[in-house]
Structures are given as structure tokens and as C-alpha cells.
């Protein structure tokens, strides 16, 4: 803590649990409390470990001893078939990753646009506000699968667009759906920014647009990072739905192998790959959420 500035803050609380106090030895009372907490936490860890172990063992035994286990094992966990289908599924996953990439960009743009449209004020903007409202209502209400069919089979049938791969239409459909969700999340974030922030920005002479862009959106975005990341995690798996339009992605590739082998193991392979794809980001989301929660309740342990 640099105490150089005149009128610097006094008694700024040290980091909780920070050690490195030089002129102070903990009292016996405190040492006793620490020993107690240490014992208590060791006991918790032990209990957690034992119960996890027991639970896993019970499930495993129940599974292996079930009457159909051998058949299930053969048709879902066939190592050889899994190994053979792995390259196909992986290649399909590459299509999913590309679809995800473009969908994320599309959702960021369209979602922000919708959120801003919905938060416009004044009677002049009624049409835009209405469009955005109807859009978000519609696409949040409609099952993703139906949007995929409508976009993937309906729009090409209009014969006004050049022939495009199914994956492109699938990506567009996913983008349309997720934009509606993301727009609502973003709008919630923007509304959570205190009105006094707008007043301060407008008082400096910033226009409505500049106020949104420089003050409201950056702060609103920060407030909704965890739910946005969560939507991204959902998208990572939902890009697999483009397979129903015939795009040869991970799921479709697995399906082809399933049809060729009469064995479901390729689906399991695809599932594992999707999990592997999303796991890093899921962990990151947890980490970020936890850190933000900690920042907000600084100084409390409840």
C-alpha cells in the first residue's frame, strides 16, 4: 500500500488472510482457532474423498452387473470401432468449430444490435423497438430444430440465393436463435448500469450513441460476462444440430459410421469430442464467475 499521496486512504483493509506481518506473533487463542480450522478442513476433504469413492464404486458395480451390460458395452464402448471412427468424427468436428466461429461473430453483432434497438427510447424509435421485441420473442420461443428446418430448407427453396452448403444455412439458423438470447442478456446488463452513469456521460456533452458505446455497453457487458459465457458453452454443442440439414459435421460423420457398423460407439466418440471442446471454456466460465462474485462481496465470507 503506497501511502505517499496527501490524504491517502487510512486503514485500507489488508488482503484477507495475507501473511507477512513482521511485528506480530499470533496469540495462543488464534493458534488454537487455526489448528481447529485445519483439522476441520482435513476432515471435510477426507469425507468428500471417501464418499466419492463409495458412490463411484456403487454405480460401477450396478452398471457392470446389470443384465444387458455386455450388449451395451459391445455396442456403445467398442474400442476398435471407436478408434476407426475417430478420424471421421474429428474431421466433422472441424466443421462444427468453423460453424461456431462464424456463429459467435454473427451473434455478437446481431445480439448487440437487437439489444441496442430494444433499449432505444422515444416514440420515433417505436418501429425498431417493436421489431427487436417481436424478434426476441419469436426466436426465444421457437425450438432450435424448427428454426433449422425453416432456414435450412425454406430459404434455399425461395431460389433467390445462390446454392450454399447446408452448413452455412445451419450456422445462420443457430446465429438467429442465439442472437435473441444474447440480446436479452445484453439488455439486462445495460439496464443494470445505474442511470446516474448516463447522466454523467451526457453532462460531459457525449451524445446518446457515444454514451451507449463508451459508458453503458462496456459496463453492462462486464455485468453479464458469466451468462454470456454460459450461452457460448451452449452454442458449442448446439452447432452439432446443423447435422440435421445434411452437413457432414461430427454428429453426421458419427451417424454415417454408425450406419456402416451397426454400432453406436461413434456417437460416444462424438460426445467425448464435444465435451473436450467445451471443457476448457466451461472451466474458464466457472473461474470467471467465481472471481467476479468474490470481487463483489469483498470483505465478507458468507
Amino acid at each position: 500500500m503506497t501511502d505517499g499521496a496527501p490524504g491517502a486512504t487510512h486503514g485500507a483493509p489488508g488482503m484477507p488472510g495475507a501473511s507477512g506481518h513482521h511485528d506480530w506473533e499470533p496469540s495462543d487463542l488464534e493458534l488454537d482457532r487455526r489448528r481447529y480450522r485445519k483439522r476441520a478442513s482435513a476432515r471435510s476433504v477426507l469425507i468428500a474423498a471417501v464418499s466419492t469413492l463409495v458412490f463411484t464404486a456403487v454405480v460401477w458395480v450396478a452398471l457392470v452387473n446389470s443384465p444387458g451390460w455386455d450388449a451395451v458395452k459391445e455396442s456403445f464402448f467398442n474400442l476398435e470401432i471407436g478408434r476407426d471412427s475417430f478420424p471421421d468424427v474429428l474431421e466433422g468436428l472441424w466443421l462444427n468449430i468453423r460453424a461456431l466461429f462464424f456463429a459467435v461473430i454473427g451473434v455478437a453483432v446481431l445480439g448487440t444490435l437487437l439489444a441496442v434497438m430494444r433499449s432505444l427510447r422515444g416514440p420515433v424509435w417505436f418501429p425498431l423497438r417493436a421489431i427487436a421485441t417481436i424478434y426476441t420473442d419469436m426466436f426465444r420461443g421457437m425450438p432450435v430444430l424448427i428454426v433449422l428446418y425453416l432456414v435450412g430448407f425454406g430459404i434455399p427453396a425461395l431460389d433467390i440465393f445462390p446454392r450454399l452448403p447446408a452448413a452455412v444455412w445451419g450456422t445462420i439458423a443457430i446465429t438467429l436463435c442465439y442472437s435473441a438470447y444474447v440480446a436479452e442478456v445484453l439488455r439486462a446488463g445495460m439496464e443494470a448500469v445505474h442511470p446516474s452513469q448516463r447522466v454523467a456521460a451526457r453532462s460531459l456533452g457525449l451524445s446518446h450513441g457515444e454514451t451507449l458505446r463508451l459508458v453503458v455497453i462496456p459496463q453492462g457487458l462486464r455485468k453479464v460476462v458469466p451468462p454470456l459465457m454460459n450461452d457460448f458453452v451452449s452454442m458449442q454443442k448446439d452447432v452439432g444440430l446443423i447435422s440435421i440439414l445434411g452437413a457432414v459435421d461430427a454428429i453426421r460423420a458419427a451417424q454415417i459410421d454408425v450406419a456402416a457398423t451397426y454400432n453406436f460407439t461413434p456417437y460416444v466418440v462424438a460426445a467425448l469430442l464435444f465435451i473436450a471442446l467445451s471443457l476448457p471454456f466451461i472451466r474458464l466460465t466457472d473461474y470467471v464467475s467465481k472471481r467476479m462474485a468474490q470481487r463483489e462481496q469483498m470483505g465478507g465470507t458468507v
Partner: protein
Amino acid sequence: MSDSSSSSPASPASSASPERSTVLALEGVRKSFGDNLVLRGVDLEIASHEVVVVIGASGSGKSTLMRTINLIEQIDDGRIVLGGDDITDPRVDVDATRARIGVVFQHFNLFPHMKVIDNVTLAARRVHGMPAADARARGEEMLERIGLGEKVDDYPDRLSGGQQQRVAIVRAILTDPELLLLDEITSALDPMLVGEVLDLVRSLGDSGSTILMATHEMSFARDVADRVVFMHQGRILEQGTPEEIFGSPREEATREFLARVMHR
């Protein structure tokens, strides 16, 4: 600080006279919120380099008055003239007008996602078109001058309330506004921190800023104000030098108000 170079796109005519010109004139300003009459015809003139302090009970209309001048609230009748321009004319450029006025709020309202320096230079960069490097240099210099040189690259939540409010003042004055509005800027502060903020306001007044300030700090009003305005039930009941208002108030309501606030 009658500024003619950078920041008055809406006033081509009226920044010539060097001596005491009228910076702000309110003529019969009225404002109500529903049935609640908040301003019942307010007339007020502020000359350049003048420090005018508005006192009065909560609900007397002080804050609303400030907000109408800054065009945050639209008035129901009357006129507000800033540097010769009728800023209540609906054809006036609201953003350009606000850029001519510096405002400091009770709750600081710093932008928490921006560093201190970016808070302070935002308007200079975005509204007044000052090159970023110049704005930064200027911001650093002013922060340095008030003892916050070390906080330039900190975020506001690392600062004490008094420090935040001083940063907010620098944000308001960085572009040399024609008028500075200070709306109860010490009311949200720990008593220990009020002094440092008032000292800064005092030095601004000494250096010639034109200031309109609403406050509950009576001793400060007595020391620093050129003129004290007492507001009561949406009107200016009386005004005069600090000696006149605090020494020999004419109106009964003024005496009552002063008796109540001075005894705390």
C-alpha cells in the same frame, strides 16, 4: 475563464467582453413533476468569475435548478440563457450546450470501468476533439496539481470518496467550461474528507471559475461565496452577500432555516 477557443460551437457572438459579463441568466424558470411544483419562477443571474452558493432545505428545488441548467430536466416555462444563448430553445444543440458546462454530482458518478485519467479526459477527447496525448498531458498535470498524480492509472474504486470527488471535479473542469455546477458535492462524503474537496473548490473560485454550487456546508458558503442565494419552496426568497444572508437575513423563512442548520 471565458472560453472562446475550443468549446462553444453554439455561441458565435457573445464571448467578447472581457470584464464582468453575464454567464448565466435564468428568467422565470418553472418546473413541476406532476402536481408537484418544484420551481415556481426562478430568476437568477451569474456574472463571470462569480461564486454563487445556493442554500435551502431539502426539497426547496436546489438540485432541480441545477438539473434544468444542465438540460437534464426540461423546464415548463421561462428561459435559461448561457453566454448569450437561449439554451432552452428546442433548436439548440443539447450536447454542445452541455459540453460548455461542467457538472459535479453528489455521488461522483465516475465511470468505474475507466482509469482515472480516462475519466478525466473523456470529454476532451470525445467531445472537444483534443488529441489524446494533449488531453492526457493536461489531465496528468491537473491531477498532479491536486496531489493525485500517483492515481492517474488507478481505477476509481481504489480511491477514497474525497479523492473520487476531486477526480470528478477535474473531469468537469478539464475543458474550461463557462460555468461549473456543483450539486451538493460533499453530501455523500465522510466528514473527514469534506475538507479536501472544499479546498479544491475554494482554489477554483480564487482562480476565476464561474461557479454555481448547491450545498449544506454553511461555513464554506460564508467563506467562499460571492453571493448566497436562499431557496424556499421553489423560489429564490432572498439573496445577497454572505454577510447579508448569514448576518442579517430579512425573511423569516431564511432565519428559521439558518437557525436549524447552524445548530447542528
